[in-house]
């Protein structure tokens, strides 16, 4: 039999570390010593199966060792100890907010919130970065496939109803000559990733409805691919419970050698010799069949628990389900793609499209019947036991035997240092030769602002027939929507609003304000479409460099704190999250480098009536245009500064108390039907938001910068008023006869009427001195916005 015993009892520390490297375990010395200690008490050496099981279960990917460990954080105010950062921030705020509509948070495969008396909604966002760097198509496809299975494996299983996707790539026009060997060109990665998400999502019949793309040189070696899925499930099916004696059933795809070491691989630094067996190729047709049959079995009540085979394969899935009881697995029973797999390979393979069920013995025949009727493979591979031991066998012989307690609680806590130093570097600032109209066109064409229609059109965002407010809006269906609205049930007008916020440009300055801005942006988008903060939940996805570097870890601490501070005031709980650390690479100069710190915030909101949602395109000439929220001199990290090569300035901050009040008032005016269109000011400030509203609606707009509320001291120039990306601001369109009512509801907030919509198809802006600084056809502006990504 192809099982080896590895001698760790008689070797020294140096050799222990070598073993960890040789077997790609990604376990550090302290962890290896804990393993040694465990086995010396047992009086024997571990098998490869056992070492692999421990490595997978203890991996950063599965255990979040760093963020749940001990962190010694110091900044200019002194040093403090943080025990379990996640519990102290994102999880704490959810506990404190006590929202009764949060049904299952931070414990299952996805966060679950209440939809109505009958149904609940599950939402999860994952990353699939390293595989996508090596094989963009397969990596992104299996990324979306994996998160779909997360949702299918939450509680007793939810039916997937929409996908989201957010990407960060290197610049798509990066010169080939400068690209190091073994690194795929950013444009190729971008196209491959989009095709992967498209083919998987479309073939599964799930609409991809929300996303964004961010291009920056920091992602050339290590792109970020975030994939999210939401599902709907009956309310009484949000919990699972395995009982001793239940059979372990593997459903779906066969097991092969693909994707071995995915979980531990995600904790490694990418270099040009990175192991290739970590790449998986997905098969959406299999996953579609698995989804349909699992849901049929769920509705018949044929199983007691379900989870997906994600990172770590069977070892993680069975290990997790059997955590509180125990399990016996007969590996030879697992259906294989081909012969010749060693037991440990079967056990940790991350072959796609597999789910694991816990099935009561008396229901096994019915269950197998449901799957065989649809030609989906379902096989009993073991049984859950009561002895709290994980017993792994191959052809009758024990190849691994581990105590569940040790496996799940034996990992030694990590203690890490985090040191925050405020950047003293006074970035580059210079006097900018103002050419406002030209600058606006350039910003509209810039990669991070321009139209992403080329990508969006490849995704089916209509399938399942519930997409009410679509990603592309306006008279020609090509304007950039803020958020998407889904109506999941045919017999109810209740809806779901989905949005995201991400802005790594601020992260290199201060992750605290980056996180705050991302949360504000996600919430702004929700409110724009007609959502309200009362019923909004958030998801966090941290992508960072090596947490062993004190500066990197300090950034995470600051971002997590912002999550707590902001969510607490906004009253929006976090329901699920994920971290992908070690996004590092060896660059062309041979140095280790980190990606820009990147936090994605996804927002989800349940609304009572989809008929009261609003799109972002102007609707009628002669309407009043208001800007809501005060403007500050916060050009740091803005696209205007980027355009002019400036790295200084203050990044936008957030005042959540005022913002919450403003968003609440705006929400009431939208609900009352007073608002004709609404768009948030984000990348490119008022100038870009106004242009987008105008050209999406096919109407002109006239605004006067003298009327824009400004809160900074000193001179505000035209450029600052137009391009500063201060948070918590909106532009809204109000019919003339509703302006009084609108102003009444908004009273007590900073807002101002700045102009009106016009029939003339021109964007006209008056500057501080009353002169005309922009007079441009909306079609020319639209052309600038569309030309960049006409691939």
């Amino acid at each position, binding site marked *: 039999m192809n099982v080896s015993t590895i001698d760790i009892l008689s070797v020294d520390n140096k050799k222990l570390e070598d073993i960890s490297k040789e077997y790609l375990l990604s376990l550090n010395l302290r962890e290896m010593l804990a393993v040694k200690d465990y086995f010396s008490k047992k009086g024997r050496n571990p098998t490869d199966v056992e070492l692999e099981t421990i490595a997978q279960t203890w991996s950063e990917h599965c255990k979040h060792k760093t963020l749940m460990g001990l962190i010694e954080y110091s900044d200019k105010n002194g040093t403090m100890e943080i025990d379990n950062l996640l519990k102290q921030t994102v999880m704490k705020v959810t506990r404190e907010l006590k929202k009764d509509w949060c049904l299952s948070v931070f414990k299952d495969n996805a966060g679950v919130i209440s939809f109505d008396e009958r149904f609940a909604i599950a939402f999860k966002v994952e990353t699939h970065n390293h595989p996508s760097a*090596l*094989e*963009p*198509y*397969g990596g992104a496809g299996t990324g979306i496939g994996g998160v779909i299975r997360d949702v299918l494996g939450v509680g007793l299983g939810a039916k997937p109803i929409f996908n989201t996707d957010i990407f960060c790539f290197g610049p798509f026009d990066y010169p*080939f000559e400068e690209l190091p060997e073994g690194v*795929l*060109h950013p*444009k*190729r990665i971008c*196209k*491959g990733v989009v095709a992967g998400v498209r083919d998987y999502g479309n073939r599964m019949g799930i609409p991809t409805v929300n996303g964004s793309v961010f291009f920056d040189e920091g992602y050339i070696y290590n792109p970020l691919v975030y994939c999210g899925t939401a599902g709907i499930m009956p309310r009484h099916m949000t919990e699972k419970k395995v009982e001793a004696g239940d059979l372990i059933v593997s459903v779906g795809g066969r097991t*092969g*050698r*693909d994707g071995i070491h995915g979980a531990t691989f995600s904790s490694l630094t990418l270099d040009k010799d990175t192991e*290739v067996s970590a*790449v*998986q*190729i*997905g*098969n*959406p*047709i*299999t996953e579609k069949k698995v989804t349909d049959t699992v849901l049929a079995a769920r509705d018949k009540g044929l199983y007691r628990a379900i989870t997906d085979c994600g990172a770590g394969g069977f070892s993680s899935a069975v290990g997790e389900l059997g955590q509180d009881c125990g399990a016996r697995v007969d590996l030879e029973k697992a259906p294989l*793609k*081909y012969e010749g797999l060693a037991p440990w390979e079967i056990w940790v393979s991350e*072959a*796609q499209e597999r789910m694991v069920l816990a099935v009561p013995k008396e229901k096994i025949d019915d269950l197998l019947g449901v799957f065989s009727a649809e030609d989906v493979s379902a096989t009993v591979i073991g049984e859950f036991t009561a002895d709290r031991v994980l017993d792994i066998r191959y052809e009758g012989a024990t190849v691994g035997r581990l105590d569940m307690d040790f496996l799940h609680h034996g990992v030694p806590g990590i203690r890490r240092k985090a040191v925050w130093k405020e950047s003293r570097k006074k970035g580059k600032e210079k006097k900018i030769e103002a050419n406002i109209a030209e600058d606006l066109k350039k910003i509209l064409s810039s990669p991070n602002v321009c139209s992403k229609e080329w990508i969006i059109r490849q995704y089916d965002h209509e399938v399942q027939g519930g997409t009410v407010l679509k990603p592309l809006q306006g008279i020609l269906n090509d304007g950039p929507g803020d958020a998407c609205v889904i109506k999941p049930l045919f017999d109810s007008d209740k809806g779901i609003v989905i949005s995201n916020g991400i802005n790594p440009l601020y992260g290199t300055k201060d992750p605290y304000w980056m996180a705050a801005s991302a949360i504000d942006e996600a919430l702004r988008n929700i409110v724009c479409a007609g959502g309200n903060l009362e019923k909004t939940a958030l998801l966090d996805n941290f992508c960072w460099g090596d947490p062993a570097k004190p500066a990197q870890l300090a950034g995470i601490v600051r971002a997590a704190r912002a999550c707590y501070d902001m969510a607490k005031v906004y009253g929006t709980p976090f329901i699920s999250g994920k971290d992908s650390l070690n996004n590092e690479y060896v660059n062309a100069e041979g140095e280790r480098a980190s990606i820009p710190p990147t936090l994605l915030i996804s927002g989800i909101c349940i609304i009572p009536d989809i008929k009261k949602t609003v799109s972002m395109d102007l609707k009628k000439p002669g309407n009043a245009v208001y800007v809501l929220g005060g403007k500050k001199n916060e050009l740091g990290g803005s696209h205007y500064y980027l355009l002019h090569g400036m790295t200084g300035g203050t990044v936008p901050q957030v005042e959540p108390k005022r913002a919450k009040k403003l968003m609440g008032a705006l929400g009431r005016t939208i609900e009352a039907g007073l608002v004709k269109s609404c768009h948030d000011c984000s990348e490119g400030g008022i100038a870009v938001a106004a242009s987008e509203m105008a050209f999406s609606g096919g109407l002109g707009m006239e605004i006067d910068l003298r009327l824009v509320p400004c809160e900074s001291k000193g001179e505000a120039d035209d450029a600052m008023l137009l391009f500063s990306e201060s948070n918590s601001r909106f532009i809204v369109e109000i019919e003339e006869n509703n302006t009084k009512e609108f102003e009444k509801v908004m009273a007590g907030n900073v807002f101002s009427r700045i102009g009106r919509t016009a029939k003339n198809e021109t964007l006209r802006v008056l500057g501080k001195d009353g002169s005309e600084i922009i007079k441009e056809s909306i079609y020319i502006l639209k052309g600038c916005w569309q030309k960049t990504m006409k*691939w």
Partner: protein
Amino acid sequence: MIYTIEVGYKDALNDASGMSTKKDIEDLGIYSVRQVRASQLYIIEGEIEEDKILSVCRELLSDPVIQYFKINESSGKGSLKADVYYKKGVTDAVGESVKIGIRDMGIDGVESVRTGARYEITGRLSGRIVRSICERLLANKVVQEYKII
């Protein structure tokens, strides 16, 4: 018996995949390509008679209105062809589906189905340029291999 089957769009029709590949080649800084035609390859191995393969091609692999198919022939002069396949051991989802599809037609004897893509490239080209196109664009050597004919 091994059958190599090529399925592509008929000449008069838009070949979207070929045209976007041509654009991608231009993005590499190579402007000497006049046309790219992309087609799908299926390598079917097993004990199957030729007339059965013919019906597999007609009924399963091609759409007779817009597509042509060729069995075991590689024609087309004046162009270079790059065939790209998944490496052995990499999941070939389309291949697996074809295998099931043939079985569902009531035809037994299929041992394996591999799929690939064929790019027929015309223009002022050398083998060296086509190799560079393969390596930089068409085949990802992590999971794929290519052959130039």
